C-alpha cells in the first residue's frame, strides 16, 4: 500500500518548481493570447472554428503525438536522431502522465496539489508491496532509463554531431546553454533524489540499486548518511526544474510550447501574412535551433553564409535585430530546401517574403499604365487550344523555345505562341521580392492576355512562371489548364502522340526548385527522360535537390558568391558521371552551363533530339 508520508503534503523544496511553473505557464498563456489577437480577424475565426471541427481535432491530436512526442520526421531522417529526441520527449511525457495516474490511483485526495505527481516519491511511503505499485515503479524507472539514454546520446551529439548525420550545427546562445545543461541535469537529479528515498517510497530496477549504493557504499555515519541528504537532492531537482522553466521562454526550448500552438494553427490552414506577428510568431518560436537547415542551405557551401540560414533568421526575429533580419531576408535564394528538411515546418522563404513585403521603396512601382490591348488582340489571333507561354527566361534561351515548338510540331499539336513578339512578366520575381501589390498589377494584366487567347491549355517552359500561374492566377477556375512542358510532353509520349527513340546516353536530371520542391513535380520529367536515355542519379535529388545558385529569389547575392553554389550543385549532379545534365528550367540551364564541364540541356532539347516527326517513324 502506498500512503502519505508527510501529513500536510508539503515541503518547502517544491517552491522553486511551483514558481518556475507559474512563470512559464503565465508567460505562455499571455504570449498565446497576444499572438491570437495579432491574427487578422478571419484567420482567428478560422483557427477557433478548426479547434472544434472534429476532422481537424483528430488531425491535431495525431500530429501533436507524432511530431512533438514521437518525432516521426526525425526518425525518417536519421533513426539515432529520432530516438534521441523521442526518448526524451515521450519519456518525459510518460513520466508526467504516470505520475498523475499514480496520484489518482493511490492518493486521489492529493490530485489538486499541483506538484504531487512530480515529487511523488518524496511524499509517499510504501507500507506493503503490491503488484499495482510495483508495476508503476517499474514503469517510472523504465521511462527514466529511456530518458537517460536519450540524454547520453544528446551529450555525445554535442561532441560528435557527424554521427547523427549533421555536419554543422547551430552555435548556442548563453541562455540556450543554461537551458541545455539544466535539461541534461534534470533526470540524473531525479534519479538521485528518488534513489535517496527509494527505501521509504519504494522503487524499482533503477532507483533501488541507487538506493543500495547510497545506503551501503557511502554509509559512513558522517557525510553520506542517507536520510541527511534526502532533502538536498530533492531541493536540487526542484531548483533545476525551476532554472529550466525560467530560461525556457528565452531559449530554444520555447519550441516545446510553441509547436503545440503551431500544429493546430497550420492544420487550420493559416498562412504567414506578417513576418513578425501572428502565425509567423508561432513559426519562429517553434524553431528548435537544431541547425538541420544549415547543411541544407545551398548558400553555405564552403562554410560560407552560415549566418544567412533560416535558423539564424528565426533567432534574429526573436531578438528583433532589424539590420540582420533585413540582411538575411534579402540574401536567400528561396529554394525552399530549408523548409523541406525542417522538422517543425518552419517556412523559411515565406518568412522572408513577408519580411521583404514590409519594406518601403522610395519609388513605388506602378504598372497600371501598361497597355495590354495590342497583346490581347495578338493573343486572340490564330487557332489552337494550346497556348505556349515561353516567358522572359526562355526568351533569353531561344534554344529551348525552338525545341518546344519542334516537339509540338512533331506531335501534331495545333498551338499558338503567346509571347513570341513580347509579353508581360509572370509577376513571380516581383512576388518573391515582396512587392505584392505591384506583382498583382502585372498578374491581373497577364491573366487578361492569357484568357483572351481562348486556349484551354497553357503550356509554359519556365517553372517560375508555372508556379505563379498555377497558384496565383486562378486559371483552372476559368477553364485553363496550366502545364509545364516536361509534364505535357510526358503525357503526349504516354498517349503515343510523341514518339521518342531510346539512346544509350547517360542523363542526370536536375530538379529546378520551383518545379520540384515548389510545385511537387518530380516523376514526370524523369519518366519522359527515361524514354530518351539512361537516367542516372545525383547524390541528392528530388526533394533534396541542390539549387543551381541562379535563383531570382536572392536580392543581394552577386555572381562571384553564386559561383561556389553552382559548382557545388554541378558536383552533386555529376556523381554518376552523366553524359548530359538535363534540367527543365531556362534559368537553371543558363546558370549550370556557366561552369559545367559537360553539356547542360533543357529536357525539351534532349527529347527533341530523339523525337521522331509524325509520319517519319522508322518502320519496324
Amino acid at each position, binding site marked *: 500500500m502506498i500512503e502519505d508520508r508527510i501529513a500536510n503534503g508539503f515541503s518547502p523544496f517544491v517552491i522553486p518548481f511551483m514558481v518556475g511553473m507559474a512563470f512559464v505557464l503565465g508567460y505562455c498563456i499571455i504570449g498565446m493570447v497576444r499572438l491570437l489577437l495579432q491574427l487578422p480577424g478571419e484567420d482567428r475565426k478560422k483557427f477557433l472554428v478548426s479547434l472544434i471541427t472534429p476532422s481537424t481535432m483528430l488531425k491535431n491530436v495525431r500530429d501533436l503525438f507524432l511530431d512533438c512526442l514521437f518525432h516521426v520526421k526525425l526518425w525518417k531522417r536519421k533513426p539515432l536522431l529520432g530516438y534521441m529526441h523521442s526518448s526524451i520527449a515521450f519519456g518525459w511525457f510518460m513520466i508526467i502522465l504516470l505520475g498523475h495516474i499514480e496520484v489518482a490511483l493511490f492518493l486521489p485526495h492529493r490530485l489538486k496539489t499541483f506538484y504531487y505527481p512530480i515529487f511523488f516519491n518524496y511524499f509517499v511511503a510504501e507500507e506493503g508491496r503490491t503488484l499495482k505499485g510495483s508495476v508503476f515503479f517499474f514503469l517510472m524507472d523504465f521511462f527514466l532509463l529511456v530518458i537517460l539514454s536519450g540524454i547520453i546520446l544528446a551529450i555525445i551529439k554535442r561532441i560528435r554531431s557527424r554521427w547523427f548525420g549533421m555536419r554543422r550545427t547551430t552555435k548556442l546562445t548563453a541562455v540556450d546553454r543554461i537551458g541545455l545543461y539544466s535539461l541534461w541535469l534534470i533526470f540524473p537529479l531525479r534519479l538521485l533524489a528518488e534513489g535517496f528515498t527509494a527505501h521509504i517510497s519504494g522503487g524499482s530496477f533503477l532507483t533501488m540499486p541507487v538506493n543500495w549504493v547510497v545506503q551501503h557504499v557511502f554509509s559512513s555515519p558522517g557525510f553520506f548518511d542517507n536520510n541527511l541528504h534526502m532533502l538536498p537532492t530533492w531541493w536540487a531537482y526542484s531548483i533545476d526544474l525551476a532554472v529550466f522553466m525560467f530560461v525556457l521562454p528565452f531559449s530554444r526550448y520555447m519550441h516545446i510550447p510553441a509547436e503545440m500552438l503551431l500544429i493546430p494553427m497550420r492544420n487550420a490552414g493559416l498562412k504567414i501574412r506578417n513576418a513578425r506577428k501572428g502565425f509567423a510568431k508561432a513559426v519562429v518560436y517553434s524553431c528548435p535551433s537544431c541547425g538541420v537547415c544549415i547543411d541544407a542551405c545551398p548558400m553555405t557551401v564552403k562554410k560560407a553564409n552560415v549566418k544567412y540560414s533560416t535558423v539564424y533568421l528565426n533567432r534574429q526575429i526573436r531578438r528583433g535585430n532589424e539590420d540582420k533580419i533585413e540582411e538575411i531576408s534579402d540574401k536567400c535564394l528561396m529554394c525552399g530546401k530549408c523548409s523541406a528538411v525542417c522538422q517543425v515546418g518552419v517556412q523559411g522563404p515565406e518568412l522572408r517574403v513577408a519580411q521583404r513585403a514590409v519594406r518601403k521603396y522610395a519609388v513605388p512601382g506602378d504598372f497600371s499604365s501598361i497597355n495590354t490591348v495590342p497583346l490581347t488582340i495578338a493573343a486572340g489571333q490564330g487557332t489552337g487550344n494550346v497556348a505556349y507561354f515561353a516567358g522572359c527566361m526562355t526568351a533569353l*534561351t*531561344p*534554344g529551348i523555345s525552338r525545341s518546344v515548338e519542334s516537339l509540338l510540331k512533331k506531335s501534331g499539336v495545333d498551338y499558338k505562341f503567346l509571347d513570341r513578339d513580347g509579353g508581360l512578366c509572370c509577376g513571380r520575381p516581383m512576388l518573391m521580392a515582396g512587392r505584392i501589390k505591384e506583382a498583382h498589377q502585372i498578374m491581373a494584366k497577364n491573366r487578361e492576355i492569357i484568357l483572351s487567347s481562348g486556349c484551354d491549355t497553357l503550356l509554359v517552359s519556365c517553372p517560375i512562371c508555372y508556379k505563379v500561374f498555377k497558384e496565383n492566377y486562378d486559371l483552372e477556375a476559368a477553364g485553363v489548364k496550366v502545364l509545364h512542358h516536361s509534364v505535357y510532353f510526358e503525357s503526349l509520349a504516354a498517349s503515343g502522340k510523341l514518339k521518342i527513340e531510346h539512346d544509350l546516353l547517360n542523363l542526370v536530371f536536375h530538379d529546378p526548385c520551383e518545379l520540384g520542391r515548389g510545385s511537387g513535380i518530380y516523376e514526370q520529367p524523369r519518366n519522359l527522360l527515361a524514354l530518351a536515355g539512361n537516367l542516372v542519379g545525383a547524390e541528392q535529388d528530388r526533394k533534396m535537390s541542390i539549387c543551381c545558385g541562379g535563383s531570382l529569389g536572392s536580392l543581394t547575392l*552577386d*555572381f562571384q558568391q553564386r559561383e561556389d553554389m553552382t559548382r557545388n550543385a554541378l558536383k552533386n549532379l555529376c556523381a554518376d558521371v552523366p553524359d548530359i545534365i538535363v534540367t527543365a528550367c531556362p534559368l537553371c540551364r543558363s546558370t549550370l*552551363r556557366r561552369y559545367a564541364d559537360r553539356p547542360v540541356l533543357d529536357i525539351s532539347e534532349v527529347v527533341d533530339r530523339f523525337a521522331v516527326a509524325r509520319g517519319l517513324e522508322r518502320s519496324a
Partner: protein
Amino acid sequence: MKETVVIIGGGIAAIEAARQLLSLGYSPLIVERSNSLGGHVAQWHRLFPDMTPAQDLVRQMISSISQAEICLGTEVASLNRLKDGYSVVLSNGRNVVCRAVLIATGFDLFDARKKEEYGYGIYNQVMTNRDLEQWFNTGNDPRVRNPKSIGFVHCVGSRDLKAGNSQCSKVCCVTAIKQAIEMKERFPAAQIYCFYMDLRLFGKKYEDFYINAQKDFDIHFIRGRVSQVDETIDGGVVVKAEDTLSGKPLKVSLDLLVLMSGMVCNAGSASIAGMIRADVDTDGFLRSKDNVYNIVESNRPGIFFAGACTGTKTVPETISEARSAALSIHNYLKG
C-alpha cells in the same frame, strides 16, 4: 653553337620574338599547335587604324624568320624544370633542353554561343566579328546577302560577369567601328547600328575613326546593351535594347547582326602553366611577375611571356611585348 629558346605558340608574338632572338644570336624553336603561323591575325582582313592588310603583315613577319626552326601541328606534351633550365617534350616525340622558354599562347575568341540570348548558332543571320573578317577575305558566307540593315553588338563576353569574364577586350570597340565602316563601304544603302555600353577608344587615331564613322559614314551609335534577339518570320532578326541616353527601350529589325566576341585566355595556356606551376591570374590569364615593370616575366626563372596570354592586347602592344620579351630572355641568358 647557338643557344636554343623554345617559343610556345605561333602567333604574331611568337614570330616577332623569334625574329628578335635570331638577330640577338639565338636559335628559336617555334612550337605551334595548328598547321600555320600567324594565329588570329592571319585570319583577319585589315588592321586598324591604317587599314593595313593583315595577311601582308603576317607574310612579311614570317619571311623574316626563315632561319628559325618551326614545328607546326605540334603540341607541348610536357614541360619539366631541370636544375638549370627546362626539358620540353613535344608531341612529335622530340625532347629539347633549353634554359629559357617563351610562352606566347595568346587568346581564344569568346564562344558567342554562350550568350544564347543573342542567338549565335541558333538564328541564321547572326555572326561574329571573326566570321565577318573571314567573309571580307573570302567573300563567301551565306549570311551576308546584300543586307539593308546591320547591327554590331559590342562587348560580347567582355566585361560580363554573367559570362564569367570581367576583363575588357580592348580591341572590339575600334574593330566594330572598323567593320561598320567597311560594311558601309560595301553596302552604302544599309543602315548600320552599333550597340555599345562604353566606347573605349584609347589608341592612336581611334577617336578619329569614331568621328569619321558618324560624320562620313552615318553609322548610328546606340548606348545600351542588347537584352535579347529574336528571329523574324522572314529570317531576319529583331534586336531589343535600351537606348540609355534617351531612356527608352527600342526594337530594331536587322538583316545581319555581328557580335563582337571578346578575348578569353587560351584554353591551353593554363595546362602549360600547370606543368611548371606558373600562376594563373583571377581573370584566367597567366600571371606576370608584376603588371607594371615585369609584364613579360613570370614567377619562374627562365619562363617568359609575350602577347595576349597574360591579358587582352592590341596588335602593336603584342609586337612591342614580343620584342621586350626577346630582350629580357637575352639579358637572362647572358647574365
